[in-house]
């Protein structure tokens, strides 16, 4: 707390820690160590992913709250979930599981398994997008379009937005898979795979949340 009386001894003020904080610094660095010897790129990238996810959550929250408000506005026809969505959900969850298997090879596992399971995860992720597209075509077949149906328009915008974010994740996945071909690990390999894993698993959680919203409020 700021003090009323001024410091009486110069030495006390000049001791490391004086000037606003108790003498013991809880972390060796002020922050995560930055680019110094104490810095950990994996921690930095994971922090960045979590920060980014906060922004993404706000984006989807805005659309979901718009949906809940709009639902009360009348002219709302419930949309039954297209069958393809159950398939796509399974594919996405499997993709995450596969990614985890790959990720756990870091720190002593087999490079072969790392490469294989990354590729499997990528394939399953692509499968998710394909299944989502099939879900869209099933809806169109049923006559639910973007414009005329309020519930339909929310279905499309939520799945499209999520799909776009998944696509971004897939591009990252593809990049990581491709670079993992090389037997020599590049310096930030673990950091990249770790951080990308956080994002990829979050896409799952986000999808499950959106599915819940669509089923309950759609």
């Amino acid at each position, binding site marked *: 707390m700021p003090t*009323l009386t001024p410091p009486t001894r110069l030495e006390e003020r000049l001791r490391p820690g004086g000037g606003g904080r108790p003498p013991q610094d809880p972390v060796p660095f002020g922050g995560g160590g930055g680019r110094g010897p104490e810095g950990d790129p994996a921690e930095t990238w994971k922090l960045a992913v979590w920060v980014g996810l906060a922004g993404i959550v706000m984006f989807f929250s805005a659309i979901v709250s718009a949906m809940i408000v709009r639902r009360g506005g009348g002219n709302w026809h419930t949309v039954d979930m297209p069958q393809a969505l159950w398939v796509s959900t399974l594919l996405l969850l499997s993709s995450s599981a596969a990614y985890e298997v790959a990720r756990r090879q870091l720190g002593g596992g087999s490079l072969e398994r790392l490469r294989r399971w990354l590729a499997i995860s990528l394939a399953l992720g692509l499968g998710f997008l394909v299944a989502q597209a099939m879900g869209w075509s099933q809806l169109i077949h049923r006559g639910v379009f973007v414009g005329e149906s309020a519930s339909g328009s929310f279905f499309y915008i939520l799945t499209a937005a999520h799909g776009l974010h998944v696509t971004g994740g897939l591009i990252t996945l593809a990049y990581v898979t491709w670079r993992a071909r090389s037997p020599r690990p590049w310096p930030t390999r673990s950091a990249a795979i770790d951080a990308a894993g956080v994002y990829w698993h979050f896409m799952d959680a986000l999808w499950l949340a959106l599915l819940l919203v669509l089923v309950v409020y759609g």
Partner: protein
Amino acid sequence: MGVLVALLIWALAVALAAPFVWGPWQPPAAITEIARQIDEQLQLTFLLTGIIFLVAQFALGYAVLRFGRKGPEPASATEGNDRWEVLWTSAAAVIFVGLTLLGYSVWAEIRFDQGRADSPAPDLTVEVVAQQFVWNFRYAGADGRFGPAQPELIDDSIGNAVGVDRDHADGADDLITARLAVPVNQETELLLKSKDVLHNFFVPELRVKLDTVPGLTGRLRIRPETVGTYEIACSELCGLGHYKMRAYLDVMSESDYESWLEEQAQYLY
């Protein structure tokens, strides 16, 4: 130079504050009880914020004046004062929140009480239907009931700006006028609607305004006490003609109002 800065700060503060008290630009005379209550709240807010404003600007100028002078004393080494901090934080919180709590009752009276099932019926109900860029007013006519209205029936060319169903018994006698006439000292409820985009019904003498939202009906009750003609100025950007979307509120004596109604009935088609 500190002197110059201080003097300028003080001069500007006075120049900003003085016209509020002594300048000619004031709200027009209030014509309802609600408007007078709003004026009271306005005065109180002026008083309290005026004091805070002048004290803060004075202190700022004084600090520059006193400590902007070259002198041998070094700056003081304190870095805060918890007691002062708590004091002015509490004072600010009490004044700010207190002001809005004091204004609660007039807000509640305008907005909470209306539309409640148990509030007494108004003496008159008029529909205000805004459109780009004119105001339409609908009266229920002799039967006292508004006829049903549909947007499909809107036809400005024959004077049915509101889309009232003339074939329906209730709708046959509805009056659609270009001026809002109300009897003095009676409570009129205004039902605010819009045909196209957002508009806002505002009469400075009433001190109240409310958006007209398409798809919703807003409610505003007024009990004007002074006969006269007052301008209604649209107060929500509604397009190119926003600046000239103006109509008139005519507050009339009871007998004048009845005559006006009869006269309007002649234009019924």
